[in-house]
């Protein structure tokens, strides 16, 4: 169980601190797929870096299975928008990075790497360098690398934001399948409402200035999601509902911006 308890984060600025997040309460049961959507200024990425332990909250805390998070660790795998793969390592050595830090026999490590390469469809590319990969392939490397550490929670920070539409859909199907196969909890941040509704079991909408939970909506769609789900009336209705919410907060945020 991942819990965010009255989580707040301020950044010092000239002319007073800026509140990025305020009073965020959220709990994610084990194995759930939760998507967080919000307009710019809603503190989505801040939220994720607090859960990852890469930043310290100003108020409140993040707890994983009841234990407060004090720093980053392999129990909370993170995937950035731009992959952040190691450019000098081959695909398989990228996936092996976290395992190389553990006292694992070589054969065991290779067996695990092979499994995650197969799971993410990278087996044929295992000897390739990142510069030879497409954006989607690089994201798959980042996902496989995070999953190889067997995280309790997989944190995805706009992971498909830089991909073209077709690749994005492939990756959406892939992450759903990987989630079902591994049973890991997924907390994904995105600005793409369609993506959030398609992927999540739950969609959390953040309001801006400061970021806080505006709505927490269950997604009532079939567990087996083909792309055709995106045409179901239920899907379209939910998408419209979330879009309206996000748009409202986006407008308010824009109006507050100094011109």
């Amino acid at each position, binding site marked *: 169980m991942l819990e965010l308890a009255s989580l707040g984060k301020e950044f010092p600025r000239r002319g007073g601190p800026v509140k990025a997040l305020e009073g965020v309460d959220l709990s994610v049961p084990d194995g759930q797929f939760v998507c967080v959507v919000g307009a710019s200024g809603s503190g989505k990425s801040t939220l994720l870096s607090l859960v990852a332990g890469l930043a310290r909250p100003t108020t409140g805390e993040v707890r994983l299975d009841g234990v407060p998070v004090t720093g980053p660790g392999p129990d909370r795998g993170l995937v950035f928008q731009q992959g952040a793969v*190691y450019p000098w390592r081959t695909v398989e050595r990228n996936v092996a990075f976290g395992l190389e830090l553990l006292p694992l026999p070589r054969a065991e490590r290779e067996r695990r790497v092979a499994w995650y390469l197969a799971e993410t469809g990278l087996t044929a590319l295992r000897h390739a360098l990142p510069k030879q990969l497409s954006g989607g392939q690089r994201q798959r490397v980042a996902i496989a690398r995070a999953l190889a550490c067997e995280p309790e929670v997989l944190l995805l920070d706009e992971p498909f934001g830089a991909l073209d539409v077709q690749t994005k859909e492939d990756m959406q199907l892939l992450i759903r399948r990987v989630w079902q196969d591994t049973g890991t909890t997924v907390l994904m941040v995105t600005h793409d409402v369609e993506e959030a509704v398609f992927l999540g079991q739950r969609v959390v909408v953040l309001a801006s200035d400061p970021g806080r939970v505006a709505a927490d909506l269950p997604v009532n769609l079939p567990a087996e999601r083909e792309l055709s789900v995106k045409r179901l009336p239920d899907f379209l209705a939910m998408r419209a509902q979330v879009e309206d919410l996000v748009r409202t907060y986006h407008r308010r945020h824009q109006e507050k911006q100094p011109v």
Partner: protein
Amino acid sequence: MSERVGAAASGLGRPAVDAGRRGEPPPSAPHERADQPAEAAAVAGPAPPRSLPRRRPVRATGRLWGIRTPVPRGARWTLMALSVTVPLVGWQVLSIVIDGRPDYLPGPVDAVSAGVEMARSGQLLTDAWATVARVLQGFGLAVLVSVPLGILMGSFPAGQALLEPLVGLLRYLPASAFIPLLIIWLGLGEPSKVALLFLAAFFFNTLMTADAVRQVPLSLVDVSYTLGARRGEVLRKVIVPYALPGMIDSIRVNAAASWSFVVVAELIASESGLGYRIVRAQRFNQIDRIFAVLVVIALIGLTIDLLLRLTRDRVGRWV
């Protein structure tokens, strides 16, 4: 909708401009304006201005001197050959023309034959090795100390705050200005030359290594922590491998500087080395020998550069 009207109105939409030139209104504008009359009217006045003169299209490719345009192979080789032969021929011609004083300007042929003579006696090899050995010691020591310090400065803002003011100041003191001090303190022997080479490379290589280290994306460091890496592991397994090609580049640049400083040091005071050989030849007015030594200095410098460049390309295959 209103965005498109805005673009056309500000003259950015090329089709609309063309349509306007033919005396027709932009195809989609009227009914869009009817949709949102207030917004469209607010964007610009009644009609966009349309009277810009058109320049003749530029020929950007298919010419020898196109900006950042690849040159055909044959042309490339010709240019590279010209780059060497023209100065060489010019030198030979000049040496023949300026023949007033004997041996005032020996040509390349004279220089090579003087060099061959010096090589035969074994003198050239001894001198070249003496010079190379000094660089290996002085510059090698500078690299050994500056690389760890550069990594410290580039990785830790605390390290930067601690070292940058000092190193940043000291690098503006020219190493050659230390020569008198070094001679007073260390004498005329090897230590003063090694120390000079150390000073000449140390500060720059520290700062340039730190710069190479700062190129490591923060996301790569962050993601490594989430994969379970500790601070030391992030340094060894992420920062160093990422920055290695950049560090070798820095070494390459500073090796060139060291190579010229060693000759300066030898010109001033020494009993061996290529610089010393130049001073000796000057004393006996053997200008052809000076040229021979200059050619050797250039060739060794080129070799050092080439070796470091090959190393860098091998290490940085992933770039």
